[in-house]
Every structure is written in structure tokens, then in C-alpha cells.
């Protein structure tokens, strides 16, 4: 999951950051309420871990703003305040869970997993992006209306990319955890130490690109829907994108500088 930690205690923020990264989450940390809302608008995290006692804007105010503008982000509140009324107030304001300090990291992890499970249950079973449509109930993928046959691994890999709707990069560590069920820390360790272990992601990304590339031959279909592409973002991972014309002209030197390659899934393959 893409997790935003909002904690003004730098030592605690540091350990939560480390621990959740070991679990394969994509983590960002901010230390005040205003920065939290700015980051949510920019990163669209799936989960926010929110401390209540924050500088610049109190956690309760952040929670109210989240409920108003960013309901798709789950919020887990951390509080050192003992009053039951405080916890009830948080839940009424839209918090998905409240954890009292002091807490064990193991308990926090378990609660995050539970939240993640619940998010999955309430998600729309059909994912759409560009000309791609994935029905997760029927395990069926179509591109521009044509069915695409995928293996179970390819399906899960594409699902991981589509769930992020092109809003953020999916790291190799996240893919290793979500698709290959790598155990705790394996993604981070593999990414640092073993090219062999991370190569599996690239191999399957290429399988996916080839299979999806058979189904379209133009950058846009008749209705103007853009063909989805998987972008490789240097040092970060992969991003599903429905490119604008400027991206399709990447061969002319107009591509964004941080991309190592743009592979169109349709017939408009562009190597940078």
C-alpha cells in the first residue's frame, strides 16, 4: 500500500517509516497537519497513519478535512490521549481505526493488514484504465474491447498496476510483495542485493507489454480513449499511463527526462 505517516515525533516517524518499508509498503512521512493535506492531494495514498497532536494543524482538523475531500484514503489514528470520547470522536469523523499509544509495531502491522483487507472488499470489482478493463470477479481482461489471455501472475501484476490508476509509481518491492508474496523485507533486501531476484519483475512486465500490445494498433481508438502504457521510472518502478500526444512523440526528444523507456501497449511502441 501507499502509506502516508503524519507524526511530529521524528524518532517514532523514522521507525514507522522503516518498519512499513520492510513490509513492502511505499511510505512517505510528514510532520505537521498542513503538510499532511498537501501530501494527500499530491500522492493520493491508500492509507494515512495520523497522530493527533500535530503542529500547524491538529490531527482532528486533518481528519475532518480528509472526510471532506479525500474519502478514498483510509485513516488510522494514533493517539496518546486516554479519553474514550476522543476515540469516539475520531471514528465519527471518519477514522477507520484508532490505536492508543503506547502500541506494539506488531499490532500496528496487524491493523494495517486488516484495513487493507477491508479496502479490497469494498473496491469496485471492475478496474478501468485507458483502453484496459479488468473484471476481477470473472478474472477477465479486455483491451479496446478485445479479450486478453493472461496467466495468474500476469493478471495479478496488471491488477497491481491498475489499482494505482496511473497516479503513482509501483515500486519493485511492492510488486514482489503483492504479486510474488515475498516475505517481510524480501523486496527491500532483494532490491539492494540481488539482481536475480528483482529481474523476475522486469521479465513479467515485458510479458505483459507483449501480450497487451497485440490488441491495439493506434495511439487512440475511435472514441478517443488513450491506449495504456507501462512506463519504467528509473530507480523507482513502474507506472501505468495513458499517454498524451507529447509522450507518443517521445522519439523526437519530447519525453520526460526521468523515464528510461516508454513502452506502448498498443502498436505505438516508442523506445527512449
Amino acid at each position: 500500500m501507499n502509506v502516508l505517516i503524519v507524526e511530529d515525533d521524528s524518532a517514532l516517524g523514522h521507525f514507522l517509516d522503516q518498519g512499513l518499508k520492510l513490509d513492502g509498503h511505499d511510505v512517505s512521512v510528514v510532520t505537521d497537519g498542513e503538510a499532511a493535506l498537501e501530501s494527500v492531494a499530491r500522492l493520493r495514498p491508500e492509507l494515512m497513519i495520523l497522530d493527533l497532536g500535530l503542529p500547524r494543524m491538529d490531527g482532528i482538523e486533518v481528519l475532518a478535512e480528509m472526510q471532506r475531500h479525500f474519502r478514498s484514503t483510509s485513516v488510522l489514528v494514533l493517539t496518546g490521549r486516554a479519553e474514550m470520547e476522543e476515540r469516539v470522536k475520531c471514528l465519527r469523523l471518519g477514522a477507520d481505526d484508532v490505536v492508543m499509544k503506547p502500541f506494539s509495531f506488531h499490532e500496528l502491522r496487524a491493523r494495517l493488514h486488516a484495513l487493507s483487507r477491508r479496502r479490497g472488499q469494498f473496491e469496485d470489482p471492475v478496474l478501468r484504465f485507458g483502453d484496459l478493463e479488468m473484471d476481477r470477479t470473472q478474472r477477465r481482461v479486455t483491451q479496446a474491447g478485445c479479450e486478453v489471455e493472461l496467466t495468474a501472475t500476469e493478471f495479478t501484476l496488471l491488477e497491481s498496476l491498475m489499482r494505482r490508476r496511473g497516479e503513482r509509481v509501483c515500486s519493485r518491492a511492492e510488486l514482489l510483495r503483492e504479486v510474488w508474496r515475498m516475505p517481510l523485507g524480501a523486496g527491500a533486501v532483494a532490491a539492494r542485493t540481488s539482481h536475480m531476484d528483482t529481474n523476475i519483475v522486469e521479465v513479467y512486465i515485458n510479458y505483459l507489454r507483449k501480450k497487451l500490445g497485440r490488441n491495439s494498433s493506434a495511439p487512440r481508438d475511435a472514441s478517443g480513449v488513450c491506449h495504456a502504457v507501462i512506463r519504467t521510472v528509473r530507480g523507482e518502478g513502474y507506472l501505468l499511463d495513458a499517454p498524451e500526444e507529447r509522450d507518443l512523440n517521445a522519439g523526437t526528444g519530447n519525453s520526460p527526462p526521468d523515464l528510461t523507456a516508454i513502452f506502448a501497449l498498443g502498436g505505438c511502441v516508442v523506445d527512449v
Partner: protein
Amino acid sequence: MSEEAPVGGRSNRTKFKQIAVALHELCQPLTTLQCSLEMAALTDTQEAYREAMEIGLSECRRLVASVESMREVLQEARQETGFEEMEAGG
């Protein structure tokens, strides 16, 4: 008696508030201490243990400061209620 009761009530409320604040101040370093030790055990590297020890010592200093402030609150409460004199007399 009827005039003293509200004063005592206010005093108690202040004490409760002080204890709540002190508890809150205990929670923060205790959480960091616990998470840092758990993280070290999970990671199981010498670097992680060293980091946990450094953070642990720093958080212990915060805990000691919180304990000191709780002692002060307790001392004030004892003096106000005359409990200290009773203890000394007993």
C-alpha cells in the same frame, strides 16, 4: 464547607488534567522505545541494534523527565491534601 467544595473540585480537575498530560508525555517515548526494539529484532542486524540502543537511551531520558514531572504533580497533590503530613505522622 459549601464554599470550599468547588475550590476542591477545581483543584481535582487541574490534577486530573496534569496527570492526563503526564500520561500523554509518557506514551510518546514509550511507543518509540517499543517500536525501535521491535524493529531491531525484526531486522536483526548489528546496525539496527546499535540504532535501537541510541534511540532507546534518548527515549529513556524523555521517560525519566516525564516521571519527574509526575512526581512533582504527586508531591503537590500530597501537600494540598495533607497526605504527606499524615504519612510523616504515621
